[in-house]
């Protein structure tokens, strides 16, 4: 083999590897038989005529070719992406639910979108979300739906595109996905902890597909003129997302846990060490973000160095990776609790302790 040919073969192999990598399906339900493609099969038979030493090898015989065209499976999937019901205020505006529409079929397919606020049957304690008045004052089934456009996670008004039926219906290749946002308002005076559901439906725009029984064949309507076949989602994927009204509140209480005087007693006197406990308790459902507890020490007390703990774990006094620091300028301790998520049932709390010496 010549050197140049070797190099060519190598680069071809590399290219093939690269292409194989690029085409590697990313989704877990990946399919690779593209609708409209033809699968052929030809068998080859080799044999000898005669028995034993007299047997003569004969030329191979090629069978007829069987072939069939891969039909298009219409199989959209919609999944609600928020891990928990999205906390809303009452009244509240422009709260976002996030959904993911995936074309799990094997052909290019266009999907129409619609929302249903508080789909029946509505649980007795649920409230009815309404379309965001800012984006859809008419509260229509196709209003206040946005398509992720700018590639930045989360809904960005003005950058992600409003959905207009028949104009920008998601047109997805096999295994491709589209992130969809539903923006809603919450009525006033809803009881804390009430849920409000919104159902998103993505329906195949192939005529006769959406809602048809699984297995329904639509000749000629598939990709490349193939048969379209309705998948198990009836060519109409549904998913419900939820809001929850949040009565989230933070109550901070500070108590004296113990006093130790210089003679080993419990008298509050100069030189005594006082141990304080601060409890930040969250009640109601929701997440308090960037929660910081600042506690100025009482007058005539001095912070005992390295005496701060959070949930029983010691914190250093300097501003560093851990949550706590002592700020000499203001004679105070500061503990950054970050994001605390509370559920309506359980609540959540953070316990801080520190010691101070009475001057």
């Amino acid at each position, binding site marked *: 083999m010549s050197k140049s040919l070797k190099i060519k073969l190598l680069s071809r192999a590399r290219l093939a590897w690269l292409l194989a990598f690029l085409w590697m399906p990313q989704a877990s339900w990946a399919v690779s038989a593209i609708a409209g493609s033809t*699968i*052929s099969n030809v068998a080859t038979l080799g044999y000898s005529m005669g028995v034993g030493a007299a047997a003569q090898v004969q030329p191979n015989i090629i*069978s007829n070719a069987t072939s069939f065209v891969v039909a298009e499976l219409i199989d959209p999937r919609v999944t609600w992406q928020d891990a928990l019901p999205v906390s809303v205020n009452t009244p509240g505006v422009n709260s976002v639910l996030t959904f993911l529409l995936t074309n799990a079929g094997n052909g290019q397919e266009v999907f129409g979108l619609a929302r249903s606020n508080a789909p029946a049957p509505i649980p007795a304690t649920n409230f009815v979300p309404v379309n965001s008045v800012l984006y859809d004052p008419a509260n229509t089934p196709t209003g206040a739906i946005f398509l992720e456009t700018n590639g930045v996670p989360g809904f960005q008004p003005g950058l992600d595109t409003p959905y207009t039926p028949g104009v920008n219906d998601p047109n997805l290749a096999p295994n491709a996905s589209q992130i969809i946002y539903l923006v809603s308002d919450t009525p006033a005076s809803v009881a804390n902890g009430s849920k409000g559901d919104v159902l998103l439906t993505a329906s195949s725009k192939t005529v006769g597909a959406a809602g048809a029984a699984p297995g329904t064949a639509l000749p000629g309507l598939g990709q490349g003129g193939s048969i379209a076949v309705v998948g198990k989602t009836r060519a109409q994927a549904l998913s419900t997302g939820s809001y929850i009204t949040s009565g989230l509140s933070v109550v901070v209480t500070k108590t004296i846990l113990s006093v130790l005087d210089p003679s080993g007693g419990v008298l509050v006197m100069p030189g005594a060490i006082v141990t304080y406990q601060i409890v930040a308790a969250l009640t109601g459902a929701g997440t308090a973000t960037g929660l910081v507890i600042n506690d100025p020490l009482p007058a005539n007390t001095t912070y005992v160095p390295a005496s701060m703990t959070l949930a029983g774990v010691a914190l250093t006094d300097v501003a560093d990776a851990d949550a706590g620091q002592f700020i000499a300028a203001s004679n105070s301790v500061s503990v950054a609790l970050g994001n605390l998520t509370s559920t309506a049932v359980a609540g959540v709390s953070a316990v801080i302790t520190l010691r101070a010496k009475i001057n």
Partner: protein
Amino acid sequence: MKMTRLLCASALLLSLLSPSVQAAAGAIKVTSLAETDVEVMKAGKKELKRLPVTKAVPGTEVIFTTRFENVSDKTATGVTINNPIAKEMEYKAGSAFGADCEIVFSADDGKTFAAVESLKIKVAEGERNALPREYTNVRWIYKGQLAAGKASEVGFRAVIK
């Protein structure tokens, strides 16, 4: 020049003297089929009926069958049948069938063949057993003699990816 003429003449003579080559094309009739088992209702009961493939959506299990029949008046031996598995298909483990056959598989587009338990595939760390979905070809080695007029069939199942 003379030598060339002599070679040509002897080649012509040889071809005339070996009628088996001429008859080969028609000695064994080979027919391929691609079918699926479809559920049909018969007298109020569900029943599987084997029909040619029509609604070939991903996930459909296709039965590929090769029928072969000795239509000559002589006995054939050393019959082997090769069938490639289309790239869009995934071989169904344990589905290959064929009476009086040794069945071997390839995972390298038919370059090498081995039985299921010894079919290897090269990977970065060396080699490992090939998975059924990596099979690229099936080969049946017919162990018996195919007497004049005798017919048999071999096949396998594969699922559309």
